[in-house]
């Protein structure tokens, strides 16, 4: 029993360390090819597969700088706080039918939503402790953005939870039916868009807008701590993709599902992650007012309408 838990946690840790690298490498290559480039080609000999490992080595060798005016302990703690929530979230995302999940949790969905929200604290810590005006502006932007988008994020997730009649992620996936793709389509779009904003990916990268804020709340970070933030961003992609796949795309459902369910789940996650990367290449960054407008005037109403629709269909089906 204890061994089983240790094994599960170890497997999740492995996923935590490998999947983001996979996403990062895919981003390198996909972005490059979408811009008619080749991307990294040399590290690791074959199409630059080891580029991110080389990057990690480079980051580890860099000097660990803390600005003189910074609030040292807070500054140094922020990357860990940024990384931890996503690690915890990965624990409860189901990979396949039955027992194929890090830790089955009765209120798993709620756990995920709560924990993802903690990431804001890390951003504010990093922003304020850097003692840098660009960092502070970036942090305030991030806080406004994350607080705003948390609402449609939670509402969209609530819709699917209502449809499934459960807060447990494996339960939700188990009761998923293909026609939900249509029924929950608005919720899926809202969830995905709000999720993108939650992990501050383009086109929602206003907080780190490099053309105006240098690098936002990451401006003062170097070396391993910066790498931690980057890792957090890529784990964020994995988490948001996996959640979208599990909640709205049916997780492990698919042909020959029971034996290769985990493969379907990974495939769907990879597909959503690809879309995340694709949007970064294709779309320009939203302006701050457009960002808030999109959230409050489009996403929140759509999410609320979807909630009503979900409730109506649920009642009609009973």
């Amino acid at each position, binding site marked *: 029993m204890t061994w089983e838990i240790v094994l599960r946690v170890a497997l999740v840790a492995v996923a935590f360390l490998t999947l983001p690298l996979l996403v990062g490498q895919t981003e390198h290559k996909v972005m490059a090819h979408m811009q008619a480039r080749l991307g990294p080609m040399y590290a690791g000999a074959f199409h630059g597969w080891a580029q991110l490992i080389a990057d990690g080595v480079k980051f580890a060798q860099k000097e660990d700088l803390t600005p003189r005016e910074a*609030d040292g302990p807070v500054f140094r703690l922020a990357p860990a706080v940024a990384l931890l929530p996503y690690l915890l979230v990965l624990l409860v995302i189901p990979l396949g039918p039955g027992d194929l999940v890090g830790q089955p949790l009765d209120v798993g969905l709620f756990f995920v*939503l*709560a924990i993802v929200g903690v990431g804001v604290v890390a951003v504010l810590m990093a922003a304020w*402790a850097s003692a840098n005006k660009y960092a502070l502006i970036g942090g*305030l932007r991030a806080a406004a953005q994350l607080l705003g988008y*948390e609402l449609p994020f*939670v509402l969209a997730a609530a819709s699917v939870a209502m449809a499934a009649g459960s807060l447990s992620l494996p339960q939700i996936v188990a009761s998923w039916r293909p026609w939900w793709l249509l029924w929950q389509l608005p919720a899926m779009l809202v969830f995905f868009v709000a999720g993108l904003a939650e992990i501050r990916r383009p086109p929602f990268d206003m907080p780190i807008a490099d053309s105006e804020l240098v690098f936002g709340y990451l401006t003062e970070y170097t070396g391993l701590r910066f790498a931690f933030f980057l890792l957090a961003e890529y784990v964020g992609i994995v988490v948001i993709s996996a959640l979208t796949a599990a909640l709205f795309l049916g997780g492990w459902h698919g042909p020959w599902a029971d034996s290769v369910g985990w493969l379907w789940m990974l495939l769907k996650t990879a597909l959503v992650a690809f879309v995340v990367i694709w949007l970064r290449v294709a779309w320009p960054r939203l302006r701050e007012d457009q960002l808030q407008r999109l959230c409050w005037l489009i996403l929140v109403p759509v999410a609320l309408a979807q909630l009503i629709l979900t409730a109506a269909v649920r009642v009609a089906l009973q």
Partner: protein
Amino acid sequence: MTLLDVALAVAGLLAVAGGVAVVSTKQLVRAGLWLVVALGAVAVEFLLLGAEFAAWVQVLIYVGAVVVLLLFAVMLTRAPIGPSPDLDRPLLPALLVGAAAGLGLAGLFAAAFGRLTVPAPGAGTAQKLGTAIFDDWVLPFEVLSVLLLAALVGAIVLSRRESTR
């Protein structure tokens, strides 16, 4: 003392330590961050007491929203890095009232429940909670939503600038 008791005591100590730091630190933003620690420890207590749903609501609303709003306000009102001067009123009255309230309550609780042990609660109460809210407490729930709406409108009205009229 069972293992659960020890866990409860550790989380409690953490919460109290966080609370002490919140009310004693000279650095505004650090007070907010210590509040995260205290609230997180309380959430852990909730978990250990079997109130799983309440624990995650605590994390979602308190840590994810309330503390962030507080930090936001601290930063908007230009908190400096490092200690701020002139944060505190005279010590004695506050200490007297605070100690009286805290220690008095503690004494009361200790006297009333000091030797009591109860079976450890089971986990997973989301369903029961939902039933209770929507069966027994519908009216308070609705009143609460009206209150939230009023607070929302009030906050917006308060934070509007006059010149935007």
